[in-house]
């Protein structure tokens, strides 16, 4: 009993930070319809800044209060800059474009902090008294109560602002209808700006009060966005009180789960340690249950319909494109020096991951962030098959892809009643659960290390990276594995193109456009979605075992949640509704051909790559809200139409001349 109380009270600490960030998420969403993934990153910036100002980093040391003021101002500055430079130009774009842009901001902030302050983590200065309280005969640091008190007071203040000021009324009206807000005399831009100010100040405050729990480093606070998004989702991205309560609930729940893991009945893995990741699993399950109870299998009349994704034109000339692509691929694999060859192989894998997103997100409109995790499932299955059972190519990959499909179907089935950005958040919780419960587990995954994968061979032919044929430069990796990859990519591209041309693909696009009308046309919406999840998971699984063979091992780090987000970004930038978009997405993916080229050309590396990557991501989304392939397609259509019009004009003139 004592212990229970102790862990509930300890959980107040994480609960406060989650609640505060959740509040900022909801405020931002209500103000501008953006799910801002970078809010945790603003807390991170604040934490670094607070440390720097209190420890003579800039050559001066401020007292606590002035330091807090400067930190809050800098957080607000970060918020305002991202509002003006990124979100405002994207105001009328799809929610997915905004999500991708916010990921760009997150990466940019992370890289900036790492370049500025180095990779060693810093101690955030403590702002609360160090007292220890005695409650029920246990000792609890007073700072937990201070943290909770600060968040509760801020929440009440924010609540009061929304309830009683003209700005608050306008925001509440605007989240229903922008016209109402204009009637109240505030433009959507102003509203969005004020909400951003509030949210970024709040995020900054969380970076300061998190001192007892977290250090200033490039991940801890950034990752608080995941439970905070879960809390915001419980609140339907609208209710401030529910977001705060859910935030505290998640923090306390996680603390209790930690307590449970110390008890004797708790399941353990090898070495007697408790199973990892049960907290993430619990959050995911709770989210799914809560949303399934609330959601309907079809949207109801008048339910908000989100902005459309880019159009998905019917692909033409499949055989010709496949032949050209294949020929270029073979030549490059043979000719390119080893560094570029490896980058090309990683690009091929990236293309496969992007293709899986084309099916589920591009065609069916389901923003699933789980695809990279499904690839991981397949990769680990391949590794465990060979290590535990001695089963290798091709049965391992087949089993891996099937395992990816099974897990994908579980995620998909649990998300049937969830749509739009909510779906993105649920699948994000799913990714974290799979990562922490599955990949990081010694039982199913690889713990914190890697799990080896033997190179593939078929009928005595070595198909692996060490095959005897070594291309023109004679170095590793062998192009042979690249040929295998290339064949897979071409086959999957053709499959996805065929899907778009088939009745099934048209059903997918019908579901994407309007689920109610699709059902009225006799389309079984749930079946179409499940089919799409199965196909897309199969494709993702293929990418998983390609990774496994490429690196000769699998590890949790390669399938983490930031990488999952990054791939959505690559796929979106390339063009998430088109096969050619997936090819572009793969070329620009991390460690792929294009980044490798820039690295070689400009000699940049490490965190600079991260920074440039983040900035390029932002610029590309703003320039091509429909993806590079989409923009190219539209330009070509426009010039075709112009040419047709010109032809008609010449013809008419010619005829006029004849008569």
């Amino acid at each position, binding site marked *: 009993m004592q212990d229970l109380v102790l862990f509930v009270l300890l959980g107040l600490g994480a609960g406060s930070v989650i609640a505060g960030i959740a509040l900022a998420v909801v405020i931002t969403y209500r103000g501008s319809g953006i799910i801002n993934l970078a809010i945790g990153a603003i807390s991170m910036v604040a934490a670094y800044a607070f440390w720097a100002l209190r420890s003579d980093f800039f050559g001066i040391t401020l007292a606590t209060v002035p330091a807090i003021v400067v930190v809050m101002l800098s957080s607000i500055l970060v918020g305002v800059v991202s509002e003006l430079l990124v979100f405002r130009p994207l105001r009328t774009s799809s929610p997915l474009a905004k999500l991708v842009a916010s990921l760009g901001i997150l990466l940019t902030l992370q890289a900036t902090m790492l370049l500025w302050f180095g990779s060693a983590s810093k101690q955030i200065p403590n702002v609360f008294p160090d007292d220890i309280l005695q409650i029920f005969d246990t000792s609890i640091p007073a700072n937990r109560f201070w943290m909770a008190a600060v968040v509760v007071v801020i929440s009440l203040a924010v609540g009061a602002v929304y309830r009683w000021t003209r700005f608050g009324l306008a925001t509440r009206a605007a989240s229903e209808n922008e016209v109402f807000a204009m009637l109240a005399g505030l433009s959507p831009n102003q509203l969005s700006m004020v909400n951003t100010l509030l949210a970024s100040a709040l995020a900054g405050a969380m970076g300061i009060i998190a001192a007892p729990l977290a250090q200033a480093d490039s991940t801890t606070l950034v990752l608080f966005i995941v439970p905070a998004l879960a809390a915001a989702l419980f609140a339907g991205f609208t209710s401030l009180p529910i977001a705060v309560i859910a935030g505290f609930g998640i923090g306390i729940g996680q603390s209790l789960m930690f307590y449970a893991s110390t008890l004797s009945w708790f399941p353990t893995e090898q070495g007697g340690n408790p199973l990892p990741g049960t907290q993430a699993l619990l959050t995911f399950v709770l989210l799914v249950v809560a949303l399934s109870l609330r959601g309907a299998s079809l949207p109801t009349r008048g339910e908000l319909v989100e902005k*459309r994704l880019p159009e998905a034109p019917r692909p033409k000339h499949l055989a010709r494109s496949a032949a050209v692509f294949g020929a270029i691929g073979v030549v490059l694999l043979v000719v390119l020096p080893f560094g570029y060859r490896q980058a090309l192989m990683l690009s091929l894998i990236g293309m496969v991951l992007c293709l899986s997103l084309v099916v589920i997100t591009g065609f069916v409109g389901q923003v699933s962030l789980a695809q990279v995790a499904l690839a991981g499932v397949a990769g680990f299955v391949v590794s465990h098959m060979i290590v535990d059972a001695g089963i290798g190519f091709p049965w391992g990959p087949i089993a891996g892809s099937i395992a990816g499909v099974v897990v994908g179907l579980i995620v998909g089935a649990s998300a049937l009643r969830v749509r739009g950005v909510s779906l993105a958040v649920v699948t994000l919780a799913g990714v974290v659960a799979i990562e922490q419960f599955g990949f990081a587990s010694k039982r199913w995954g690889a713990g914190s290390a890697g799990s080896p994968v033997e190179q593939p061979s078929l009928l005595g032919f070595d198909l692996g990276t060490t095959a005897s044929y070594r291309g023109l430069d004679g170095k590793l990796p062998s192009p042979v594995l690249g040929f295998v990859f290339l064949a897979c990519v071409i086959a999957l591209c053709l*499959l996805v193109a065929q*899907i778009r041309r*088939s009745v099934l693909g048209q059903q997918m696009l019908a579901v994407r*456009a309007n689920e109610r009308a*699709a059902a009225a*046309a*006799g*389309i079984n919406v749930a079946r179409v979605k499940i089919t799409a999840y199965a196909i897309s998971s199969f494709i993702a699984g293929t990418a998983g075992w390609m990774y496994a063979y490429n690196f000769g091992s699998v590890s949790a780090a390669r399938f983490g949640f930031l990488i999952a987000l990054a791939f959505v970004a690559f796929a979106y930038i390339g063009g998430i509704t088109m096969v050619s978009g997936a090819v572009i997405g793969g070329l620009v993916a991390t460690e792929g051909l294009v980044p490798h080229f820039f690295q070689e050309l400009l000699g940049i590396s490490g965190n600079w790559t991260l920074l440039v990557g983040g900035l390029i991501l932002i610029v590309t989304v703003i320039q091509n809200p429909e993806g590079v392939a989409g923009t190219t397609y539209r330009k070509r259509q426009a010039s075709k139409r112009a040419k047709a019009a010109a032809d008609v004009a010449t013809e008419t003139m010619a005829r006029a001349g004849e008569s």
Partner: protein
Amino acid sequence: MTTVLSARGVSVSFGGVHAVVDVDLDVEPGQLVGLIGPNGAGKTTFVDAISGFVPHRGTVTLDGVDITGSSPHSRARRGLSRTWQAIELFDDLTVRENLTVAAQHPSTLATLKELFARPIPLSQGIDEALEAFALEELADATPTELTQGQRKLVGVARALAARPKCLCLDEPAAGLDAHESVAFGRHLREIVDRGTPTLLIDHDMGLVLGISDHVVVLEFGQVIADGTPGEVRSDPSVVAAYLGSAADELTAAD
């Protein structure tokens, strides 16, 4: 012959609002049945109920088969096609593809065959429906390139392409000009006479009373009159309820 569509005691309430109360309605083979009533009378909600989009009490049978508990898509596949008051076309598909997804529901095996071998032959219903509304020229356009009136027609053609046992049209002529509306009425009558019984909801009294075989009038979710166009036109409660509010609307529009 069995009644094509038969609704018995259909009621829908949203919280405390009784949007549809105990409505009985039959569509017989070869019939065009009109459903009219002032704004907010519950016409759309009635169609939502019989097509499975809102939970309801009462029973719905289609061609003698009870479809009360079925999901929207299975009601559609059994032959109850509907359109929407706000046109809900699939903007990402061409006109022909819009009709295709309504007309063709390949099995898993057929889908696999289509992906890996040969295309599925297009159902005749698609060409017939395009022809019925003279939309052949627009078959490869996307809905965003069409005029409002054309979009309305595509919506109806899509419902027709499935070769339904019964067609339910929710305000198909709203937004059409007088000329288009008359032409639409003529097309619709032809469709019914060629064998597709239809339930027509519309605001345009002239259109509905002019072409229907039978008319049902709703007010506050209840049936207040039910008979031939002639009977309904002279029914005092209809004149009071519907024509009265239509007159109000006219004055409001001034």
